[in-house]
């Protein structure tokens, strides 16, 4: 149980900009202390350099009252003035097309609801599936409740049309299977009287895929979340024969409200196509650009035929923004050095958390020669990942027992902290959106040496070697492009810069062609394509498709990003394999034991002489380190067919990996024996160097664990020597 957690309202800031800190004392502490720290190293393991930070005399350091903040997890549609009948005596009709995806949870799931949350008894109505998956219509006047259910369970993962026709004193509820199986009854309906007048619900909000429970200011709290697709929910005048309705289209005319999800697919808006302007919005990022009931493979790209993409997939564990109250805000001082920072919050019950953020230099400030790239998109992609312990194949993949530390145990119990882009939702569908607006418990110092905490090894090495450097971030490169990069002689990445947008790759391409120099100190980099949306800062979208090492594959027809319309998946599948940018690309992974590199003949090329100054001909490179070896976890290699430049030098190659290191799926057109490191020579990392454009250059290590070897022997080792040789030469403006 973590006692205190929090987050900042955005990942990165510049001096003069404000940053809001949001904290929840989960253990119930009445107060907590906060202090701003500059982070240098987060590796507190016995074999590591130790946790290192510098205190910052920030105005916000101090003691604050503690509180436990609420979370509303689960996506839904919200129409503030949704129910529009002027006179209930004439009755009304509700209709919706659904494809439920998690009926085994055996809980009520609201499809469409209209409830007064500020009145006793919450008068209004709800159309839902009950715990037995039966369609139910509930009605309440605040004093009495009434429900009619159809004695039939709707099927999972198939399309159904549900209609409720409410007349003056009776209700008819009908269900139609849109694709009945042979000998399967397509239609069922039931009519029953109800014992009180229809409650007045004019002007009340309508919710889709959940029921409104309470409202606190701007925050909506919901219950009875539905998992599955919903299409074309509508409210219209009463009809007397709902069971005769074959398709929902026949009900479109004369609606009071009809929400057409095929419109504005790229946004969080839901459009009322009835002409009455009852537009709404989505909350907590349900999945858009998903196939509707009429999609049969006509196109794979939603922007070609939005009419086939009229559904939205809602999940009970979708989460966008926890919307916690701000505990304190800080305007970044003008003289604050660019760096990796965190607010350390701690309380008397032993709770401690670090709320990380990145400070870039002011736009017009003098720049350091080097910029370290914080992989904020990658951190978001892995945010609060559950997949390690939710996938039975993880252990055989890792080659070691699965381990759940305190943060993982906390997350396992607290699904309301959201999922990562590696996780499946509770209904089994893959997560496609991730957000910064929540505590991200695996983007912390003193946690596993992976991504953020592993990248601090590079920050530590830069600091210990007195290298003047700035911090830049994925989100800022995405927003500002090459303008952000061109101020620096050299960009240094972290251990795992995996996720990039089109704008980012364009920026790197232009930078390198115009004399920029890039040190890619990681593995599995520049691998997946990311999309963002200008209305949703701090949110990324990833659509995983046919190829790549992945925890799930999205359904056919759902592999184009909703935010941009771009095809998702690997950059390799989009014609921009990592080899074209950094000379190497992902080929293998394994997590049980890491190894080292040996030099190749090309390392003795005069062009590479500066790289190996002080390194012996036969030295093993990186047969040491916090993670056991500089070649490990995820490995990249050169491949001319995928774009490694012909003049690139392969300087060193890793050896002696274990049986657990296997080729990636995209490297295997068909399964075959001998895909592991024992038998397959393609399972290796390669150290690559090449010049670009007008005196630019790239140095790539092709291994995630390279950075974890920098600190070995008090930073005096051949991994640090090679890295330092390259860095010194790359920031030297003389031509290469």
């Amino acid at each position, binding site marked *: 149980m973590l006692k205190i957690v929090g987050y900042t309202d955005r990942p990165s800031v510049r001096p003069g900009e404000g940053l809001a800190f949001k904290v929840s004392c989960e253990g119930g502490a009445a107060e907590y202390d906060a202090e701003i720290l500059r982070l240098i190293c987060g590796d*507190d*393991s016995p074999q590591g350099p130790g946790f290192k930070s510098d205190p910052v005399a920030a105005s916000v350091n101090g003691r604050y009252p503690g509180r436990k903040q609420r979370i509303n997890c689960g996506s839904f549609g919200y129409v503030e003035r949704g129910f529009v009948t002027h006179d209930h005596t004439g009755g009304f009709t509700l209709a919706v097309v659904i494809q439920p995806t998690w009926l085994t949870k055996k809980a009520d799931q609201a499809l469409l609801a209209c409830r007064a949350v500020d009145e006793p008894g919450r008068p209004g109505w709800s159309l839902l599936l009950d715990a037995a998956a039966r369609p139910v219509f509930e009605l309440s006047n605040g004093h009495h409740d009434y429900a009619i259910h159809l004695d039939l369970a709707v099927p999972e993962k198939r399309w159904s049309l549900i209609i409720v026709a409410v007349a003056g004193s009776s209700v008819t509820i009908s269900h139609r299977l849109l694709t009945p199986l042979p000998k399967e009854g397509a239609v069922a309906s039931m009519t029953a009287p109800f014992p009180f007048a229809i409650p007045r619900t004019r002007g009340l909000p309508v919710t889709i895929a959940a029921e409104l429970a309470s409202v606190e200011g701007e925050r909506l709290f919901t219950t009875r979340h539905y998992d599955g697709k919903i299409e074309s929910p509508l409210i219209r005048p009463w009809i007397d024969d709902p069971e005769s309705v074959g398709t929902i289209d026949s009900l479109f005319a004369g609606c009071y409200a009809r929400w057409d999800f095929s419109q504005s697919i790229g946004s969080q808006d839901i459009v009322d196509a009835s002409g009455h302007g009852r537009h709404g919005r989505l909350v907590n990022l349900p999945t858009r650009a998903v196939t509707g009931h009429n999609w049969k493979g006509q196109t794979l790209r939603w922007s070609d035929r939005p009419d086939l993409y009229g559904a939205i997939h809602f999940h009970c564990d979708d989460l966008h923004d926890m919307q916690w109250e701000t505990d304190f805000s800080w305007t970044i001082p003008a003289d604050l050095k660019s760096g990796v920072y965190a607010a350390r919050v701690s309380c008397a019950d032993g709770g401690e958390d670090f709320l990380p953020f990145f400070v870039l230099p002011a736009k017009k400030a003098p720049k350091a020669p080097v910029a370290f790239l914080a992989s904020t998109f990658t951190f978001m992609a892995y945010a609060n990942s559950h997949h390690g312990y939710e996938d039975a194949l993880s*252990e055989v993949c890792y*080659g*070691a*027992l699965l*381990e759940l530390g305190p943060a993982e145990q906390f997350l396992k119990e607290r699904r309301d902290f959201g999922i990562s882009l590696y996780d499946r939702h509770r209904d089994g569908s893959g997560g496609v959106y991730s957000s910064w607006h929540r505590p991200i418990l695996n983007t912390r110092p003193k946690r596993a040496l992976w991504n953020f905490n592993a990248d601090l090894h590079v920050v530590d090495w830069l600091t210990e070697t007195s290298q003047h450097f700035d911090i830049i971030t994925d989100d800022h490169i995405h927003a500002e492009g090459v303008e952000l990069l061109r101020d620096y002689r050299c960009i240094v990445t972290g251990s795992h810069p995996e996720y990039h947008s089109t704008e980012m790759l364009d920026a790197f391409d232009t930078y390198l062609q115009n004399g920029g120099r890039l040190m890619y100190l990681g593995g599995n980099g520049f691998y997946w394509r990311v999309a963002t949306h200008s209305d949703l800062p701090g949110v990324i979208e990833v659509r995983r498709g046919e190829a790549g090492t992945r925890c799930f594959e999205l359904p056919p027809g759902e592999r184009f990003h909703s935010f941009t319309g771009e095809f998702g998946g690997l950059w390799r599948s989009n014609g921009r394999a990592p080899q074209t940018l950094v000379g190497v690309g992902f080929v293998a992974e394994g997590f049980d034991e890491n190894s080292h590199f040996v030099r190749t003949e090309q390392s003795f090329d005069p062009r590479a002489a500066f790289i190996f100054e002080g390194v012996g001909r036969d030295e093993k490179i990186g047969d040491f380190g916090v993670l056991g070896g500089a070649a490990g976890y995820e490995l990249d290699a050169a491949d001319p067919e995928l774009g490694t430049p012909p003049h690139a030098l392969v300087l060193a190659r890793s050896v002696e990996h*274990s049986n657990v290191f296997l080729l990636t799926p995209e490297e295997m057109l068909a399964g075959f024996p001998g895909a592991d490191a024992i038998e397959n020579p393609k399972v290796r990392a390669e150290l690559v160097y090449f010049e670009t454009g007008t005196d630019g250059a790239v140095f790539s290590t092709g291994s995630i664990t390279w950075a974890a070897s920098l600190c070995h022997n008090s930073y005096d080792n051949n991994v640090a020597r090679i890295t330092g040789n390259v860095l010194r030469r790359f920031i030297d403006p003389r031509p290469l």
Partner: protein
Amino acid sequence: MYEIDPTRLDLAEEFRRKPYGRHSAELQRILNRMRTEPFEGHYVLLRDGRFGPYRLGQLGATPADPIAPTGHVFTSVREAEWVVFKLRWKRLTGQDLALD
């Protein structure tokens, strides 16, 4: 399906000596069989401190279900790997692994 030969104590000894890294092909087959056991009942480690101790647990029927501790507690992951190896050996061969 690959079946573990309970007389191959040499392979168990190989694992005890070196649980991670390069293994013989035959030991790797044993490990593949053991580590691909079904989700329900799959062994995992619960680490309650920064660097231990470790409690052994078993996953529930679905990811939403709680992990059930078995009562085993370890001070190191290597120690846990060996105990889990023996538990799985017993389950898959029906015989105790008599190496200790």
